[in-house]
């Protein structure tokens, strides 16, 4: 082939790879290493960074706000993840049929996905308005007096979870739909001949053959939900009384409100470590429940 020898070969390689590689190094590679380095320093952006060893990490262990942010993040995940999975699977099952208006419904469920988090958070902040919001108005039809959602420490996180489920359902649904379409019709036909009921077909064909998709969704959604931020920032800014402060909110506060760059970096590495370990555990556990037989 032309130019595959000597300096000409390297010229070709440089042309294709170097622009990307330099940028990657400057904007991803070096920042990752810098952030690790910074996590061992104390730095307010103005003075020179001061090396303090593991003090930031020790500080994190003693920081009650960190533990409460971790707790809030986990609470968010525990409430959000199963809900969004079940709702999205249900809708995907319905939409998987050959039906009239399927494209329309799929588009409707997908509209919140393409809208920005800021827009969606503002819309829901208004819907959750205690006096004139639609949510409490709807509850009043059934005789309930709705809470002051975003100002009440007991309800604020629930409001954020509901908003997140609403926004992400379409996204998870599309992933499930792709998985459902991968299941060969022949399984269902065989089950039909055996006279299996729809519930049996769902439990013994759909659920097991969908486990690879479910596994993929779980990995992606867990990583995303550990990084929950936009909706919290717009809807509550972490309040009331810190009841919705999540890990990324805490990183943001330390870095860009208190200018504690070292501490913020340390928290971000702890977040990375948590995500990494959880992903690793999921990977280990997959053999027990994910069915790749198809």
């Amino acid at each position, binding site marked *: 082939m032309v*130019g595959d020898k000597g300096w000409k070969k390297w010229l070709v390689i440089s042309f294709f790879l170097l622009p990307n590689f330099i940028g990657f190094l400057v*904007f*991803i*590679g070096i920042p990752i290493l810098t952030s690790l380095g910074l996590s061992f320093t104390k730095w307010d*952006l103005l003075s020179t960074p001061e090396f303090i060893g593991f003090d930031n990490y020790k500080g994190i262990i003693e920081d009650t706000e960190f533990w409460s942010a971790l707790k809030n993040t986990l609470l968010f995940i525990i409430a959000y993840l199963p809900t969004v999975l079940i709702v999205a699977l249900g809708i995907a099952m319905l939409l998987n049929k050959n039906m009239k208006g399927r494209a329309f419904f799929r588009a409707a469920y997908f509209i919140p996905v393409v809208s920005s*988090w800021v*827009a969606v958070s503002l819309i829901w902040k208004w819907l959750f308005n205690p006096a004139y919001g639609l949510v409490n108005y709807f509850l009043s039809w059934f005789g309930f007096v709705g809470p002051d959602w975003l100002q009440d420490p007991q309800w604020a996180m629930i409001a954020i979870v509901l908003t997140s489920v609403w926004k992400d359902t379409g996204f998870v649904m599309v992933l499930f739909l792709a998985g459902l379409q991968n299941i060969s019709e022949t399984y269902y036909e065989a089950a039909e001949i055996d006279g299996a009921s729809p519930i049996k077909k769902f439990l013994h064909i759909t659920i097991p053959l969908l486990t690879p998709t479910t596994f993929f969704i779980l990995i992606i959604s867990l990583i995303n939900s550990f990084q929950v931020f936009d909706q919290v920032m717009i809807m509550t800014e972490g309040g009331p009384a810190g009841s919705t402060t999540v890990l990324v909110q805490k990183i943001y506060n330390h870095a860009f409100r208190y200018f504690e760059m070292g501490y913020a970096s340390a928290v971000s590495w702890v*977040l*990375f470590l948590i995500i990494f370990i959880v992903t690793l555990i999921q990977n280990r556990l997959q053999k027990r429940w994910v069915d790749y037989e198809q």
Partner: protein
Amino acid sequence: MNSDVTVVTKKQTTQPVIFLNKRKWLNKIVFYTTISLGALIMIIPFLWMLSTSIKDQGATMTLPPQFIPETITFTNYAQVAESFPIWKFLFNSFFVAVTSTLGQLLLCSMAAYAFSRLHFKGRDTLFLIYLATLMVPMQVTMTPQFILMKYLGWLDTYQGLILPGLFNAFGTFLLRQFFLGIPKSLEEAAFIDGASHFRVFFQIILPLSKPALATLAIFSFMQSWNNFLWPLIIVSNQDLMTVPLGLSILQGRWATDWNLLMAGVVISVIPILAVYLFAQKYFIKGITLSGIK
């Protein structure tokens, strides 16, 4: 629906035909009611946003709420446009999203070509390093990236908004996978005819990769258009704000003027919805391929 009919007939061959139809209809009614209710839950918040945006302030505070306002007014939009450089926000978002998208397409496809077609020492190790960085959340890199921007004097600049986002490994990964699926026989014929790598890349590989490129384009456009955290960190000058950041300062100014806020939200949502409706197919495909929002 055909398969449903056969199930029913097989199980209940002794039932009269009328019953069969009744049951089929009942199923259909339940099915469409459920799915429509779900769709309503998805759409009502957007209709409510529209409805609020054309009310006057007083009409937002009535019970029961008015879905169709008694008096329709467009002054909210005018007031948003007067008080904030909303056209500038829109222009900035478009400019940043379009340049990021084009930049990513070019940079990622070139690197993907190197990773899938050129042979050199350490290629696969380097690719693995690229992949490994996908696991690092952006919160880890954002602080050093901010510091870098500060030292380069790129806070409150377009290059600061655009450049760091160009280099995520995801696009390279997506396109490399696609390029690997293109049969090599096509380029081999071209090489025999004396074509260079540049010609093969631009005239064979890229034209064959339109679906993957379209997917990546829409993905990057959407990501850039909706990005909030990065502009929040590096932009404080209103003239450089993108729409999501602009919306958040609207909120700071009009915390309770929901009619004004919703007018702002409508302006921000319409462009991305238009893009989505035109390119629905690729959106869905992009999501399925990537699993990343």
